[in-house]
């Protein structure tokens, strides 16, 4: 347990704005880290929320935030030099396979946990990224690994869903007799991840998804983040097919702050009020 337990306060070393609603905040602090792990980000006087580590080096790290509600809007409005508190990293991270026969499928801000993963994987993997439109495509210049883009409005790449591209890839491989995908990693809206999971199941391909739930402690005690039998902050946030198959609440319910389980659409609409 090398994670930070009482918040360590760090100053924003650099801020990069991505398109209309994303920003990355960089911090000069070395963290032990596995792609997929998250930190609890504290803005004193406001609140504390979980964010994935989206960039990681020996000397620093960054988080990437999509401005949605009160907290995230305040977070993207932080300036260089502002103090932010961190606990973590928490959670299990992705189980990393070294093979070119892998797909990474990102939806919107779901790119954040996947970016350090892509950098850790073989350069020949299949890398799919979907977004609302061209402006919302995170890290356009970041990767050596080529990326297939799709947008809801067709403003860049394929017009349509990431699942289309993933299915096409799987079928193409089947037809060509090239090795099938050994793993699909995905993060994005839960409905998207669920569809990816179904596609993978139908083709017998294992997948790993990164879930999001309301969190308090971040270390598996308070129960705020439970999803069925799983404790998202501790057992997850990354879960593999084996777990997903038994998680009744996956793509169905999530607990509100009060502990009340609600349908996912209600959970997300309520949160972003």
């Amino acid at each position, binding site marked *: 347990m090398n994670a930070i*337990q009482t918040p360590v306060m760090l100053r924003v070393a650099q801020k990069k704005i991505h398109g209309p609603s994303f920003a990355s905040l960089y911090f000069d602090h070395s963290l032990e880290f596995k792609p997929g792990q998250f930190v*609890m980000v504290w803005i*004193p006087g406001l609140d504390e929320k979980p964010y994935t580590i989206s960039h990681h080096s020996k000397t620093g790290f960054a988080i990437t935030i999509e401005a949605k509600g009160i907290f995230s809007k305040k977070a993207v409005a932080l300036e260089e030099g502002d103090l932010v508190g961190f606990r973590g990293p928490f959670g299990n991270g992705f189980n990393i396979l070294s093979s070119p026969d892998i797909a990474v499928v990102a939806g919107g801000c779901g790119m954040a946990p996947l970016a350090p993963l892509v950098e850790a994987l073989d350069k020949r993997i299949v890398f799919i990224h979907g977004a609302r439109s061209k402006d919302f495509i995170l890290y356009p210049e970041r990767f050596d690994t080529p990326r297939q883009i799709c947008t809801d409005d067709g403003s860049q790449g394929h017009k349509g869903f990431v699942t289309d591209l993933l299915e096409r890839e799987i079928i193409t491989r089947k037809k060509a007799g090239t090795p099938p995908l050994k793993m699909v990693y995905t993060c994005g809206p839960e409905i998207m991840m669920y569809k990816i999971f179904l596609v993978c199941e139908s083709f017998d391909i294992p997948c790993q998804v990164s879930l999001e739930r309301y*969190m308090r402690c*971040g270390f598996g*005690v308070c129960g705020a983040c439970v999803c069925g039998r799983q404790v998202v902050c501790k057992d997850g946030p990354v879960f593999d097919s084996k777990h997903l198959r038994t998680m009744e609440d996956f793509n169905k319910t999530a607990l509100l*702050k*009060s502990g009340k389980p609600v349908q996912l659409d209600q959970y997300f609409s309520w949160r972003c009020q």
Partner: protein
Amino acid sequence: MTLHFLGKTLKNPLVLASGVLGNNKQILERVHENGCGLVTMKSIGPAPRDGHKNPTVIDLGCGMINAVGLPTPGYAHMEEEWQALETRTFPLNASIYGGSVAEYQTVAKFVAAKHPDFIEINISCPNSEQHGMIFGVSEQSAFDVVSAVKQVIGDIPLIAKLTPQAPDIAKIAKACEAAGSDAICAINTAGPGMVIDIESKMPILAFKKGGLSGPMIRPIAVRCVYDIFQAVSIPIIGLGGVTTGKDAVEMIMAGAHLVGIGSGVRYRGIEIFKKVNQELNAWLCAHDTTLEQIRGAAHGRDAVKNKGQAQ
């Protein structure tokens, strides 16, 4: 290690503390499967409540501080959960709270109709009728709330959960016993405490103050159980800072019938229940003794023998 507690059979003496993981049936079931004899639900309140803003729970290394703020869907808004729990295959302790005697009663009556195996009343909440004073620090308040709840829950055993902030916890326990409580659970979090981040100059918890739990409060919990054991005849759930089988032995020697674990989940995972059971059994085995034989042993042999009559 099967044992009987207030007329129910438990597979072992370990109890999951309220507020730790007890948010839905599936996770309660998992905790039970992982070696916990009795699982407690997160405290259920009279009305929906979000609890406090984060940070709410911070690990301090030798324990933690929390001010979660009693989030609850509200007793009347948990229909699906109650339905799911009907088909449970494990004993269940339903923890409840209120801001007034009437609220405790309302929640207790409703919850009793859902047939939990036990009802635990968390009397560490501010008593709205007495200007925010905590129910559990006054004998009269404790007596009032326990008797009121007892009236409306039929034959479901009642457990009163006490706070170490009481100036004399043994007196509160006696008041609860006199009011009809079937058991005592001790202790809730200690303190309260505060941790300040010196860079931002702000208390770290959004609520500023919070309750202390985990290993650092074990001496306080052991002392409370010891004091309560001398004051009452009803059984005690000893809770506070237990993380090992030896800690459980200590709690039992202080006088506990059952041993609760909350923060320990942080330090040894959900498997802590399995591990503590193993360690506890190994210790009993190596010492060729039983739970019954060591219960209250720290009071001396005569003290234990005379306990019943001494009241």
